[in-house]
């Protein structure tokens, strides 16, 4: 393997590695606009110029593969490279508009960051602002993106994204010289389901998000790392929130799961949380007022416990959603199986166990819109091949069920299936005693004996196991509304009422219990999940996209 030196630091990298990748590995920042780890390098912005010993002129680090014995100096260490990069930056800023106060990219803009860098920024502009070349502004490019061609530095990341990743190729440069501008054909709307990524990969403010437009300055946002709960892919994302309100979702790079991308449905999924009224207080049927939590949990356990018959199977239907975290599902499973004898216990509203293996497109989206179906299956929540919601409803209508315990989260992507809601309503109506743990007010839950408000995605922390068995940790960004509690706390309360161990008080402790209870998770810890990709299904560990590959790759 070639051994090279960058700014006097030696590093050994694989043959074919680019200089910029080696520098990234060393933690040396080489400024760049056009290079993106998940796009083909093009080397057109010239911002990553570095000196290589023996080369007469600076060369671009993003297209030059390393050669054994190479001695590289970045602008941080080499005068020649520094002068070159200073010149490139000044050149890129010649016609850049003075839009920072109204530009949504301000605060996370590469041009701003590089200009403020003491090594290659802080030049004095020699261009009169009145003489800058003007181009078209605020061009509406469909539901996700707004284009401002004046701010563009022509790095072509977006052009390559649409050509290589989505394959839609809607964007291209037109005209020549200083009149070059980015254009969609006839300014037609970008309708591909991954268009939102263009705002993320644009290093400047040329392509910005329409949904986030003018909502909040980025430096005001608090950031929480999480996992998308829109489908069973489990894309890594970051929740940006301000004073308890989620403002946007942006992808985090994870080469094994979602590369750098996020689908538009997932990106907008947080709007579903606020689209319908939330359940904010525990509610008991027959009492006009809400009940307090202690009474609600005691009543729930009392009512469920009363149906037990010594020596005979419990006539209980227990249905958990596969949108719940692994830790919540473990507590659900423990409460039901430790308290009752042979109840109906399942996690399927439809045929999630089959859908989890089906893909919706060739990039990210899966047919199964639950983030944790694989986790529920690994927990054995779909052990009976003939089980699920529909058989429960049939049995309840036949009078064979005395009580129901339902844990339900509305989907974050796509509309709720009316047939499923109807089946849930039928189940709740048909049983004499029903306890519903859910996030939103819903017509189907009106007849429940007890409706308990729980925290939705982004309001509690936990782990999700994606369709390929990758276990990932999702953090808590905002507080649940009203008196809603994390489902794990409610189920812990039920276990406490039953005289059982209510589970650990931290997510770390609850995950340790999961690792001890389920062989697939043996040896894993929450801290370990962050540092490595833990795939628990199938046991030999297959890379999610190993065989299938990305479109265009």
């Amino acid at each position, binding site marked *: 393997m070639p051994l090279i030196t960058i700014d006097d630091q030696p590093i050994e990298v694989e043959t074919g590695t680019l200089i910029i990748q080696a520098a990234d590995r060393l933690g040396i920042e080489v400024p760049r606009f056009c290079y993106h780890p998940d796009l083909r390098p093009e080397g057109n912005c010239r911002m990553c110029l570095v000196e290589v010993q023996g080369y007469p002129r600076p060369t671009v680090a993003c297209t030059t593969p390393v050669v054994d014995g190479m001695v590289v100096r970045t602008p941080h260490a080499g005068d020649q490279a520094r002068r070159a990069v200073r010149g490139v930056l000044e050149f890129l800023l010649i016609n850049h508009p003075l839009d920072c106060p109204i530009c949504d990219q301000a605060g996370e803009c590469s041009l701003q960051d590089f200009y403020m860098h003491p090594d290659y920024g802080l030049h004095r502009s020699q261009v009169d602002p009145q003489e800058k070349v003007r181009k078209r502004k*605020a061009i509406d490019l469909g539901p996700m993106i707004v284009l401002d061609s004046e701010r563009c530095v022509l790095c072509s990341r977006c052009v390559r994204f649409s050509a290589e990743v989505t394959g839609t190729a809607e964007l291209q440069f037109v005209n020549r010289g200083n009149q070059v501008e980015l254009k969609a054909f006839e300014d037609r709307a970008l309708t591909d389901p991954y268009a939102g990524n263009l705002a993320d990969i644009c290093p400047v403010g040329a392509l910005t998000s329409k949904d986030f437009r003018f909502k909040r*300055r980025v430096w005001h946002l608090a950031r929480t790392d999480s996992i998308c709960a829109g489908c069973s892919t489990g894309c890594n994302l970051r929740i940006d929130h301000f004073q308890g309100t989620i403002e946007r979702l942006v992808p985090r790079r994870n080469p094994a799961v979602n590369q750098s991308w996020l689908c538009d449905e997932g990106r907008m999924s947080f709007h579903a949380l606020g689209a319908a009224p939330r359940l904010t207080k525990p509610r008991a049927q027959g009492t006009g007022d809400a009940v307090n939590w202690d009474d609600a949990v005691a009543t729930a356990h009392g009512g469920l416990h009363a149906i037990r018959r010594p020596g005979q199977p419990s006539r209980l239907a227990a249905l958990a959603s596969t949108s719940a975290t692994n830790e919540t599902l473990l507590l659900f499973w423990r409460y039901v199986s430790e308290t009752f004898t042979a109840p109906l216990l399942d996690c399927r509203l439809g045929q999630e166990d089959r859908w989890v293996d089906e893909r919706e497109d060739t990039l990210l989206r899966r047919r199964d819109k639950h983030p944790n179906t694989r986790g529920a299956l690994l927990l054995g929540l779909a052990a009976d091949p003939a089980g699920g919601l529909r058989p429960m409803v049939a049995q309840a209508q036949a009078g064979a069920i005395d009580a129901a315990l339902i844990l339900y989260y509305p989907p974050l992507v796509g509309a709720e299936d009316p047939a499923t809601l109807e089946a849930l309503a039928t189940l709740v109506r048909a049983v004499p005693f029903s306890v519903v743990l859910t996030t939103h007010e819903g017509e189907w839950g009106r007849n429940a004996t007890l409706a308990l408000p729980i925290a939705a995605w982004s309001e509690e922390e936990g782990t999700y196991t994606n369709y390929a068995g990758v276990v990932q940790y999702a953090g808590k960004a905002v507080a649940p509304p009203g008196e809603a509690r994390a489902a794990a706390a409610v189920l812990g309360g039920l276990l406490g009422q039953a005289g059982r161990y209510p589970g650990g008080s931290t997510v770390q402790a609850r995950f340790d219990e999961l690792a001890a209870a389920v062989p697939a998770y043996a040896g894993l810890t929450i801290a370990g999940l962050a540092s490595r990709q833990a795939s628990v299904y199938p046991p030999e560990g297959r890379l999610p996209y190993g065989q299938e590959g990305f479109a265009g790759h």
Partner: protein
Amino acid sequence: MDKKDLPVINVTEAAEAETNLASGMGGTLAGMRVTFNHMVRQVLGKDQVTIQYPEQRKPYSRRFRGVHVLTEREDGSLKCVACYLCETACPAECITIEAAETPDKSVEKVASRYEIDLARCIFCGFCVDACPEEALIMSREYDLTTYERDSQTSYGIGRLTTRPEIEAYGAGYRPHMHYPLVESYLPGRRRKVTDEPEKERS
């Protein structure tokens, strides 16, 4: 130095002189003369220290940091483009802004809500320093007495642009008072902020 060489002070003599009626009155009278002098000058109306507030008011510096004013463009539209820099700079966190989009592509972004909670404001002027457009300046208005706290101490776009006090007190502190970089107009007056009269209100 020998002990006998030291100068001798007769303390008894000095004490007797102090208790002498005439010389003792002298010091008192000197003090009273200052007092009466001031009294006479006040009564005659020269060099008055006490003024009849609020009918009379003291002049304040042109750099006085009083209640804020949102300035306008020549056409009377609000200069603020909702960049949130004032809100970011504010150490008291008393500024609340909401941005909106305008069809005018030369402006793009405007403030649909701009509120300064003057009960929280510490009048440090950081917001005015932060403003890249001189859209926010301070006036020389300092009289903020109100009968209600919540409803009257929070100034929205309306009161920051159209209150009679702007006319009465005039513009106060702004960062480029003597070397204006941008043009801005006091609301409702169509007069450039830089054309503020030198004379201070008294």
